[in-house]
C-alpha cells in the first residue's frame, strides 16, 4: 500500500504499489448537433443518382416516376414556352393577396384578443370553433357566395392564413414577460407606449413564427383551390398534367412548389434576421 498523509491523500512522490491506476472513461460523447453541410449535399446527390439509375436501368416505369433528367427537361420546356410564368404568376398573385389579407387581419384580431379582455371573450370561442375546419371545405360555399373568379380562391387562402396568425399573435402578446409590462407601468408609460414599445416587439418572434406556418398553409390552399376551379395556376397545371398522365410535367410542378416554398422560407429567415437581431 502507498503511504497516506493525514488528509487521506497519497504522499508526494509516493507511487502506489498494489492499486492499479486507470484513466476515467470518457462518457460525455454524442447528443451534440455538429453541422455537416457536406452530408446534406451528398445525400441529395445520392438520391438523385439512384433515382436516375433506377429509371435508366428500367427498374421503374417512367410513366409513374419520371427521371430527374426528364423533370429538368420538362421544367426547361415550361420556362421556354412561357407556361411556367403564366401559371406561377397567377398562383403568386393569389397567394400574396390571400396571405396579406389573412395575415394582416389575423395580426390585428390576434393583438386585439391578446390586449383586451372583451376581444378575448368574443374571439376565443369563435376562433376555437372555426380554426379546425379545413378551409378548402369552404370553397364551394364561397363560390356560391362570391361567384367563380379570383375572389373565392383568395378568400379561401386568407381564411386559412387568418386563424394560425390570430393564434400566433395572441400567443405572442400572452408571452410578453409580465415584469416588462410592470416596468413600463412603474414609469407611468401610457398604455399606447407600452403596447408599441414593449408588447409588440416582444410578440414579434411569435408572429413571425406564425407567418412561417401560415405561408405553408397558403401554398397548400392555393394548389387545392386551383385544382377545384381554375384554368391557370400551379394547382390547375398539376391537375391537367395528372389527368393527361404527363408525369414529367406533374413532377416539374411539384419541384416548382418546392422551390417556391424554399424561397418564401428564405425570405422569412431574412426578415427574422433583420427584425430579431437582438435574439
Amino acid at each position: 500500500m502507498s503511504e497516506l498523509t493525514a488528509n487521506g491523500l497519497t504522499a508526494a512522490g509516493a507511487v502506489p504499489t498494489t492499486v492499479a491506476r486507470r484513466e476515467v472513461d470518457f462518457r460525455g460523447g454524442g447528443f451534440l448537433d455538429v453541422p455537416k453541410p457536406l452530408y446534406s449535399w451528398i445525400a441529395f446527390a445520392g438520391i438523385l443518382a439512384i433515382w436516375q439509375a433506377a429509371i435508366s436501368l428500367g427498374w421503374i416505369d417512367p410513366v409513374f416516376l419520371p427521371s430527374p433528367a426528364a423533370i429538368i427537361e420538362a421544367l426547361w420546356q415550361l420556362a421556354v414556352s412561357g407556361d411556367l410564368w403564366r401559371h406561377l404568376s397567377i398562383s403568386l398573385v393569389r397567394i400574396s393577396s390571400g396571405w396579406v389579407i389573412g395575415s394582416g387581419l389575423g395580426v390585428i384580431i390576434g393583438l386585439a384578443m391578446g390586449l383586451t379582455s372583451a376581444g378575448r371573450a368574443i374571439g376565443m370561442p369563435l376562433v376555437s370553433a372555426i380554426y379546425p375546419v379545413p378551409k378548402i371545405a369552404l370553397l364551394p360555399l364561397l363560390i356560391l357566395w362570391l361567384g367563380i373568379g379570383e375572389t373565392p380562391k383568395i378568400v379561401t387562402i386568407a381564411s386559412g392564413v387568418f386563424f394560425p396568425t390570430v393564434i400566433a399573435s395572441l400567443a405572442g402578446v400572452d408571452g410578453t414577460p409580465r415584469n416588462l409590462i410592470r416596468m413600463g407601468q412603474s414609469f407611468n408609460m401610457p398604455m399606447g407606449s407600452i403596447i408599441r414599445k414593449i408588447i409588440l416587439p416582444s410578440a414579434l418572434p411569435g408572429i413571425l413564427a406564425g407567418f412561417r406556418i401560415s405561408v405553408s398553409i397558403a401554398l397548400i390552399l392555393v394548389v387545392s383551390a386551383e385544382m377545384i376551379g381554375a384554368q391557370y395556376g400551379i394547382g390547375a397545371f398539376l391537375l391537367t398534367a395528372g389527368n393527361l398522365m404527363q408525369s414529367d410535367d406533374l413532377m416539374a410542378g411539384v419541384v416548382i412548389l418546392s422551390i417556391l416554398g424554399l424561397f418564401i422560407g428564405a425570405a422569412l429567415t431574412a426578415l427574422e434576421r433583420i427584425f430579431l437581431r437582438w435574439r
Partner: protein
Amino acid sequence: MDVIVDVKRHSYDQLLVLEDIKMHVREGEIVAVIGPSGCGKSTLLSIVGGILKASAGGVFLEGQPPADCLNPLTFIFQDFALLPWRSVAKNVALPLEHHKLASGELKARVDDALQRTGLLDFADALPKQLSGGMRQRVGIARALVVRPAVLLMDEPLSALDAQTRDLLMEDFLDLLLREHIAGIYITHNFQEALRLADRVVVLSRRPGKIKEILNVPIPQRERKSKAALGQLSELGERLWSLIRDEASVADREVIHE
C-alpha cells in the same frame, strides 16, 4: 419627499398576505425590509410603488419631489427588466420618451445616467452582450435618468454572483448617498441590509406584520471600519434571532402548500 406607508391589510383572494404595516420613510433615508420567504415583502414594495392596490389602507407622499424629477417612486427590479431588443442607451432613454423633453435634454439625461453608472462605453451594446452586473447597472441608470425621489429596490443584487454583488453594492451605496435619494430595499441578506440601510424593518412570516424596526446607528460610510464591525455583527445576530424561527416555519409552509 417622505413616503408614509399605512397598509392595513392586503390579501390575494382569501389569502391574507400583509397586515397592519405602518412605516415612514423620510427624505434621503434608506430603509431595508427583510423577512422570511412568502412574507409579502415584494407585495409591499409593489403597493408602495402603485403597481398593486392594497386591500385596505394605502401609501401617501408628503412634500415635493426634486424639481427635475419625472417619476418620484422608481423601481429597480431583481431581474433587471431590460428590453432585450433595445441598446443600453435606448433602454435608459425609455422612461423619458413619453415626456415632452427636448431631444438635447433627453440625450443629456441619458448620457449623465450612463456616466454615473460607468456605462458610457457600452451605450450601443445590447443587454445580452452584458454580464449580470452590467445589466443591473443599466437598470440603475434607467432609474436614475428620471431623477427619482425614492428608489424601490426588490432584491436588486440577488441575481448576481457574490463578487459582483459586493462591487455593485458599494457603487450603489455611494450613488444613493451622493444623490441623497431615499430607498426602500427588499432583501433576504442581512449583510446587505446592514451595509445599506438607516433602518431595517423585520417582517414576520405570512401574513407579514412588522415584527421590529432596528436602527443602524452607524453612518454608512463608516460601516466598513473595524470599529463598526462589532456593533454590526451584534445587529446581524439580533436580526437573525428575530427571523430564524419565522423563516424555519415559513419554509415548511411554503414546501407543504
